[in-house]
């Protein structure tokens, strides 16, 4: 009561509760009990990054969609075996990489792609810093679309493993250990692949980045 006898009414307004965003681990635990809604939330969380990563590997929207679907389906099937030694994203990334690399290898076997590891091995001596030039057009400015086309063409000539390391490192900014975990290989292998992938890309794109 107030001094003049009027009842005091206080409006107690609770601070607006921030929506609780479940951790990946909580969602994974629910998935492991068959909760597809939890899995859908994880998919929503990572589908964009996963799709972009796959698209940069295969350069085709429909293929990227199908491979992402395939990868998420595999993740659902094996999520019961996920023990949390790595982050969920690293684990998912590894599945997606395996699916994508397998697909690229299959297409290579079927003759649809022309990537060639020998580009680097034949033309690039690791002890030599001279990378061969290709299609060099000195002082010629290249339009954005053409640059993108040149980059895509260069990436498509890399082996799936070299594509993976250079995209994970340069585009996704992943550390060597994360890349190694995602690809299931050693850090040394990652660094070595990165060395050759860069050399190959430099040999194919030197005129582009030198003339920008």
């Amino acid at each position, binding site marked *: 009561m107030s001094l003049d006898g009027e009842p005091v009414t206080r409006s107690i307004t609770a601070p607006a509760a921030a929506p609780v965003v479940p951790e990946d681990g909580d969602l994974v635990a629910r998935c492991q009990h*068959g909760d*597809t809604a939890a*899995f*859908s939330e994880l*998919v*929503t969380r990572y*589908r*964009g990054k996963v*799709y*972009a*990563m796959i*698209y*940069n590997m295969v350069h085709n*929207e429909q293929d*990227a*969609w199908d491979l*992402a*679907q395939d990868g*998420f*389906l595999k993740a*659902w*099937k094996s999520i019961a075996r996920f023990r949390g030694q790595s982050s969920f994203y690293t684990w998912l990334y590894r599945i997606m990489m395996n699916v994508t690399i397998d697909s690229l290898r299959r297409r290579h076997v079927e003759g649809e792609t022309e990537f060639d590891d020998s580009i680097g091995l034949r033309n690039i001596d*690791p*002890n030599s*810093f*001279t*990378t061969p030039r290709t299609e060099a057009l000195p002082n010629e400015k290249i339009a*954005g679309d053409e*640059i*993108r086309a040149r*980059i895509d063409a260069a990436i498509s000539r890399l082996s799936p493993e070299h594509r993976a390391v*250079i*995209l994970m*490192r*340069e*585009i996704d900014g992943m550390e*060597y250990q994360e890349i190694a975990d995602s690809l299931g290989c050693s850090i*040394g292998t990652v*660094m*070595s692949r*990165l*060395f*050759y992938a*860069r050399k190959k*890309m*430099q040999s194919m*794109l*030197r005129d*582009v*980045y*030198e003339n*920008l």
Partner: protein
Amino acid sequence: MKTFEEKFTAWVDGRLTGAELAAFERELEARPEATAEKQAALQLGDLLRAHIAAPPLRNPDFFNHQLLQSIRQQQPQSSSAPRRSPSFWSLPRMAFSGAFLLLLATIFYSAAVPNTRREVRHNQQYVSNILNARSDDPDITATSFHSKENNVNVLWLDGLGYMPRDHKLK
């Protein structure tokens, strides 16, 4: 022990430190073009980051919908009630066992039951014959019973003076 490629990559990415970095830079002193190569690698990275951009995922909700549909389609095969372990009594085994038991029963029947039946039938026929036989002598009475002690059927005839030859028990 890192290879040259590994050390060069770590050097480009700024991951070499301390004594390792100093040792590698000493190694590179004999290679004046190394700095230019490092610069080229960094330029390549900038080029890729500036020009590689994946288009956004179209119809993201449909993406989830399609995925969940695939999961539901596969669930009955994989995550439904655990499959029962196959029973020993498969259909072929049941059929074979039935036929075998039928054969055993037939053998048993032909080996044991029919003989008994024949004897019983024979005895019954004999008793029947006797019981149905007319006797002029009203003092003759016939009684039949089973002797548990001897496990035989006994035909007890009272008042019968003699046994006709053709009705002699064998």
